[in-house]
């Protein structure tokens, strides 16, 4: 079996299993899975920047929130249809990532983290300040009537699952294609050794900016879809928590692997969901799990599996 066949078989197989899960899971878990798929798209975007290009950002909540408001405001204020609003949300994520990148990519390492964090905080405070339109801390509900695409009501569990799956599948196939393309190889070269890449003739600023914009488009798409599928847009999605969450998903599942963000999102979501049912101090459990991860699987679950058993895993 060629490497390409193995790679596509695995990823399409995972997609088939996820799609089939809606028929066997109880409604509560099916809804959770829809939410996880959208969050996994956000994490896939983060993985493009961090896992493949080596850009450790603490500002992705800004791009995620850009998707929410890029979709929600045109619907709420201008009565846009959901599809163009969704596209605007996606574009908003990419444009903001480009603007932040033009400035932040002049720094590197810890400075890049801090600059991206500052941009995200500025974005969060702006959302609060413009509360007349954004709803501030409380946000606003996306009207159920506005969540219907071609007669399909996205507020219904089954439709929502299929819509989330469609986005998730497109994002995964897109990511797989990207990382196996020549540009994907160059992103990895940038992560491995930026100076060496420059000496081969690559422009690090340009490569990293493109990667960050792609990452922002994924985050924006996830934000727009989340708002539309679950009917709520709020400033809480712009807080630092939503910059850290995709990082944790990626680190847990395996940075620089296509399936890692989804696996990390599933495990982290249920770790919080289950432990919070027993104790208010569930973050201690999450913290302990992350310490264990760093000690025993520093490359994340799929990263370690790839290192030991499946070097072909993209």
């Amino acid at each position: 079996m060629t490497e390409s066949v193995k790679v596509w078989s695995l990823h399409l197989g995972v997609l088939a299993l996820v799609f089939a899960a809606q028929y066997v899971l109880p409604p509560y878990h099916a809804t959770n899975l829809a939410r996880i798929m959208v969050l996994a798209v956000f994490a896939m975007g983060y993985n493009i920047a961090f896992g493949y290009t080596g850009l450790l950002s603490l500002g992705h909540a800004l791009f995620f929130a850009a998707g929410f408001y890029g979709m929600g405001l045109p619907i709420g204020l201008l009565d846009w249809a959901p599809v163009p609003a969704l596209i605007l949300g996606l574009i908003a994520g990419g444009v903001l990532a480009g603007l932040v990148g033009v400035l932040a990519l002049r720094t590197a390492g810890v400075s890049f983290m801090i600059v991206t964090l500052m941009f995200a905080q500025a974005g969060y405070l702006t959302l609060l300040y413009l509360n007349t339109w954004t709803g501030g801390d409380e946000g606003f509900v996306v009207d159920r009537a506005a969540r219907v695409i071609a007669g399909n009501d996205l507020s219904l569990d089954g439709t929502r699952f299929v819509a989330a799956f469609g986005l998730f599948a497109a994002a995964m196939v897109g990511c797989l294609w990207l990382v196996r393309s020549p540009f994907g190889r160059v992103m990895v070269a940038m992560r491995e050794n930026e100076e060496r890449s420059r000496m081969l003739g690559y422009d690090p600023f340009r490569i990293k900016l493109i990667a960050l914009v792609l990452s922002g488009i994924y985050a924006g798409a996830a934000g727009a879809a989340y708002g539309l599928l679950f009917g709520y847009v709020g400033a809480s999605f712009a807080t630092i928590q939503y910059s850290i969450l995709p990082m944790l998903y990626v680190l847990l599942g395996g940075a620089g692997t296509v399936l890692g963000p989804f696996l990390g999102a599933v495990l982290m979501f249920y770790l919080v969901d289950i432990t919070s049912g027993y104790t208010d101090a569930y973050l201690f459990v999450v913290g302990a799990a992350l310490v264990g991860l760093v000690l025993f699987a520093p490359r994340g679950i799929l990263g370690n599996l790839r290192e030991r058993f499946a070097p072909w895993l993209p």
Partner: protein
Amino acid sequence: MLWVEGVTAGYGNGVVLRDLSFKAAKGQVTCIMGRNGAGKSTLMKAIMGLVPVQSGRILLSGTVLSDLPAHQVPGQGIAYVPQGRRLFGGLTVAENIEIGLLARKRGTRTRDFVLDLFPRLGNRLDQIASTLSGGEQQMLAIARALCIEPEVLLLDEPTEGLQPSMITAIRDTVLKLRETGLATVLVEQRVDAVLRMADRVAFMEQGQIKADVPVAQVQADSALFKQFVGV
């Protein structure tokens, strides 16, 4: 032809190269020798645009390299293998070569050329680069540099820390490349290696080329080695 004309360059306010002039001709191997701190590696970096040139200029076939940002220099036909090799250590041999090929959109012909030059790499295409031996890593670093089909190849101490058989292999490769018309500039500390590979030897001291002579001259008179290298 690579021309370095009256270049003064350094780091911040510190000047390392002082009004340095130097040339490397097509089909010739030019070795740069000098004591530690003479400025040999800085000269390589200045040519590649990695150290800012304060005055003077560097030209390759009429193009002023010193006016270009660093990432545009390789595209003019100049490749650099730095000291310490600096591979993409987490990637395989094949991926390292592929990234070299993609830099100037070269295809299978170039890939076949570099793998013919280093058959050992052909047997290790799926191996992670950081797990190769030192000599194989050096071969991969040179192979990847050659993927851009350069007119000029800069090698900074390519035999450093290698076992004798690998040094011989690297030396033979440099000689083969000379036959293709490549201009090679080589920083080297090993006198025996220099005598076997070089057409010319340039001796550096305190950021300047103090002597630039045919290798036959240093073979006949080792006083230059004693004066500038101390051996």
